[in-house]
């Protein structure tokens, strides 16, 4: 009895050691697996020669506040700003920790101002909610460059620079229209971003307006995904089931497009051409390799953050932009949504985000 019990406990302890050891080994293995460093990874933010005023000027301190980089594009925004500032010896960049909460972001912006910056670049988590804070900062004498998500009062910024959502749709529509010029009764499908965002409505409006120029094309279906690969896969898989044959697809966002491409490969479909949106590195790689239905993507360029640094620098040094006649920087700058296809993808590859 006694011996059997001790044997049992011995067994139990041996089992514990076995389990404990396995757990420890698993833990060690797993802990070693968080690295994303890769030997052949070229960072997506190589900078080309600056287009703004070349010669160094007076020292400028630029404050930069953006949302939390929880999305490839936003991550690229931070990288672009950082890399651009490093090019200029006289520019000091103060970056606030990103936040998606307006109250937190207001605190961060105020901390930047109190720390003493010459120009402030703000990509607000929510443009409308951030307007009053930007107004106060402008009134107190620090000029604000508003990046992409616009404040709802023009007095709240000295200069706005951002992408063109309507133009994205327009250019995607024209590209598809030209590709399908000779196809009779061409059918087009749209995989949009979340419907509760105004930018989604603008992209769709631009797309529809462009397609209206091509009477041979009909948009047969439109569904919304959530800018995530997961939602892109799910919605696209169902869309493919709904539309057994069509000629072209426009997907608003390359992140959800990664999932959509999976769904397309899973369904074994390849009868149509696909155009993406935003300009991710993965999308550009597919376009360059020509190994999928994805033939082009319409940019929403994250390089706008680099340009915002250029604008802030010019503003801080009280001069205009090279190539423009004016002595000051513009008050508003809407960027072009270029179509990246196999013909020009090489040029844009460095701007593709991960």
């Amino acid at each position, binding site marked *: 009895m006694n011996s059997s019990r001790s044997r049992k406990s011995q067994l139990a302890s041996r089992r514990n050691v076995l389990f404990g050891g396995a757990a420890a080994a*698993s*833990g060690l*293995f*797993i802990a*070693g*697996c*968080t*690295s*994303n*460093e*890769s030997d052949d*990874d070229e960072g997506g933010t190589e900078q080309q020669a600056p287009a703004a005023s070349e010669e160094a000027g007076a020292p400028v301190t630029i404050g930069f506040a953006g949302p*939390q*980089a*929880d*999305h*490839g594009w*936003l*991550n690229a925004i931070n990288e672009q700003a950082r890399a651009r500032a490093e090019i200029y010896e006289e520019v000091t960049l103060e970056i606030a920790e990103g936040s998606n909460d307006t109250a937190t972001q207001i605190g961060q912006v105020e901390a930047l101002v109190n720390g003493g910056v010459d120009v402030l670049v703000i990509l607000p988590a929510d443009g409308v909610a951030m307007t009053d804070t930007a107004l106060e900062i402008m009134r107190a004498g620090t000029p604000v460059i508003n990046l992409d998500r616009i404040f709802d009062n023009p007095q709240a910024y000295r200069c706005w620079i951002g992408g063109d959502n309507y133009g994205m749709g327009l250019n995607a529509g024209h590209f598809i229209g030209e590709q399908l010029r000779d196809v009779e009764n061409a059918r087009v499908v749209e995989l949009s971003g979340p*419907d509760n965002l105004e930018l989604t409505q603008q992209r769709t409006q631009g797309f529809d307006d462009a397609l209206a120029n091509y009477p041979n094309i009909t948009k047969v*279906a*439109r*569904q*919304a995904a*959530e*800018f*995530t*690969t*997961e*939602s*892109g*896969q*799910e*919605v696209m*898989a*169902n*869309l493919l*089931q*709904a539309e*057994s044959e069509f000629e072209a697809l426009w997907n608003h966002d390359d*992140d959800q497009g*990664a*999932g959509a*491409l*999976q769904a397309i*490969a*899973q*369904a*074994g479909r390849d009868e149509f051409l696909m155009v993406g949106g935003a300009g*991710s590195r*993965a999308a550009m790689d597919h376009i360059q390799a020509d190994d999928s239905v994805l033939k082009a993507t319409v940019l929403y360029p994250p390089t706008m953050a680099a340009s915002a640094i250029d604008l802030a620098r010019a503003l801080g040094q009280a001069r205009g932009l090279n190539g423009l006649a004016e002595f000051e920087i513009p008050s508003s700058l809407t960027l072009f949504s270029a179509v990246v296809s196999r013909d020009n993808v090489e040029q844009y590859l460095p701007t593709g*985000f*991960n």
Partner: protein
Amino acid sequence: MTHGATSEPASSSTLAKSEPPGASPPEAGGRSGPRLVLGKLTDIHTISLLGVLAILILIGGITEPDSFLSTTNLQLVLTQASIIGVVTVGVTFVIIGGGIDLSVGAIVALASVWCTTVATQEFGFWGMAFTAVVVGLGCGLVNGTLIAFGPMVPFVATLAMLASARGLALQITGGTTQNVTVDSVLELSRRDSFILGVPPLVIIFGVVAVLGWLLLTRTTFGRRTVAIGGNPEAARLAGIAVRRQRLMLYALSGLCCGIAAFMLVILTGSGQNTNGNLYELNAIAAAIIGGTLLSGGRGTILGSVLGVLVFQTITNLFILNGLDSAAQQIAQGAIIVAAVLLQRRSATTT
């Protein structure tokens, strides 16, 4: 894929213990097919859910007969349901045991990005699968330990896990999409990998569902789960190690999340910190309309599986008919309300 369950000979004595009062007693002897299973495994919720599913299929068959009533569509709906289905099986156990797990979506996100890092992908298919499962299980164990031995309220502990796991997932990815380059992982979602027309992801879901059903209805573990959910004090007095049981329930839920995360990586070919968005609510909703009592002590795996299928069929049906996501969300909300009202009614009558 739940057909595996229907062919199992049922043992009435073990089942009776986990059945709510009022359920019809099982017929003895014989594999009389669906009727037997319905009589034993289901209550009013499961039957009404089958009705809802039948109505949805009828609507689909009338509105889009060609695209809806096809093998590829069946494969599609089951594939899309498989991931949230596996999560829901785990969540069902937690809820039956009187708890709640709000962290499942975040754990799926963390496990999916952890198993798709460049470093993990070097270990190939099994390295990635192992990582996903261990990360899920690890998070579940942390949840369980905090709740059982903290002791912390499940709502708070799993909410904390939700925040930290999502944060860690963001930390690992830095906001980027981690694409899978291991071909053996990607191929598993392609048509060539289907086994007798059944996608591998659906097979995994089927196996998890059947194992979950066996675990809940045929084992001491299952009966203890029902006992601590129904009345933890009575369960303690009856000699059940309530805390240990709780720990294991959350570990089980975490394990399911790990499996689901790897399935999601197979399906989407990538790991993203936004993965598993709102899985906690979808899984809880599916379990609830499947007849699992939110206060614990009652529920079935079959009900949860049907709940998942109902939601996925709605999504499929709406997209096939070209209706937008807003209409879809309204329909889902309406079904949850209807199911819970029904549940209340039956709870007061029994």
